[in-house]
């Protein structure tokens, strides 16, 4: 099984003009890595309409429904940063973290993401870096004090 976050799942300079396009991009990124089938990508948009996955701080975290976990082949996270911010409901979004999970395999990375969003320095790196290694380092490192 591949690691949860891989270099080919990290995209800088993506383009979307709506949340529908952005969620579709997350879905196709996960699908092209072989992590999900199309049904899961569809469920990501379905889930988005039930409740927004906008987190705050210019970041949204699209994922499927509980029901659609069966269309996940292996757990995977994609990091999609947009060249231009776009409007997600009433908020500006610059970064989407797309999640596909079969169980709880992704919990640690999401915890690291939460820490990074609350850490000005790390968050700045996530928004500005052009080196996928920086993203891997930040999201794969837990700093539980």
């Amino acid at each position, binding site marked *: 099984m591949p690691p949860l976050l891989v270099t080919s799942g990290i995209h800088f300079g993506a383009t979307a003009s709506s949340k529908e396009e952005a969620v579709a991009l997350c879905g196709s990124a996960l699908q092209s890595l072989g992590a999900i089938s199309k049904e899961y990508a569809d469920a990501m948009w379905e889930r988005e309409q039930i*409740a927004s996955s906008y987190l705050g701080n210019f970041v949204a975290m699209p994922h499927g429904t*509980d029901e659609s976990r069966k269309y996940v082949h292996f757990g995977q996270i994609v990091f999609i940063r947009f060249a231009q911010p776009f409007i997600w409901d009433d908020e500006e979004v610059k970064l989407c973290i797309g999640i596909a999970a079969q169980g709880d395999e992704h919990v640690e990375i999401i915890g690291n993401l*939460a820490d990074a969003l609350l850490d000005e320095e790390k968050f700045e790196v996530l928004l500005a870096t052009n080196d996928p290694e920086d993203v891997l380092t930040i999201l794969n490192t837990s700093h539980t004090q």
Partner: protein
Amino acid sequence: MPSISGTDIKLIVVACEAGMGSSVMVANQLAKQLKSSGIAVKHSPVNQLASMDADLILCHRGLSSRAREAVPEKVVITFDMFLGDPAIASVVSAIQSGGTISHE
């Protein structure tokens, strides 16, 4: 209105629609804040809440009616923000000071 004393809480469950995204993030942050208290923090899809045997439930405002329907006898606290919500901060402080937590 259900209420619970901070000292009686053994298990907090954070619920969201899929139990995959936002509840994971909120549960993770809350677990870090409550690390020294010995309280367990789990996450769950809202439709599995009834089987979780939580003492306290946290969920996003948009899911609060589904959560309250699933576990009418439990205290359900709603939040609006996935990071740094004041409702979650007051739960943490009630637990740390042994105060009472009830629906708003």
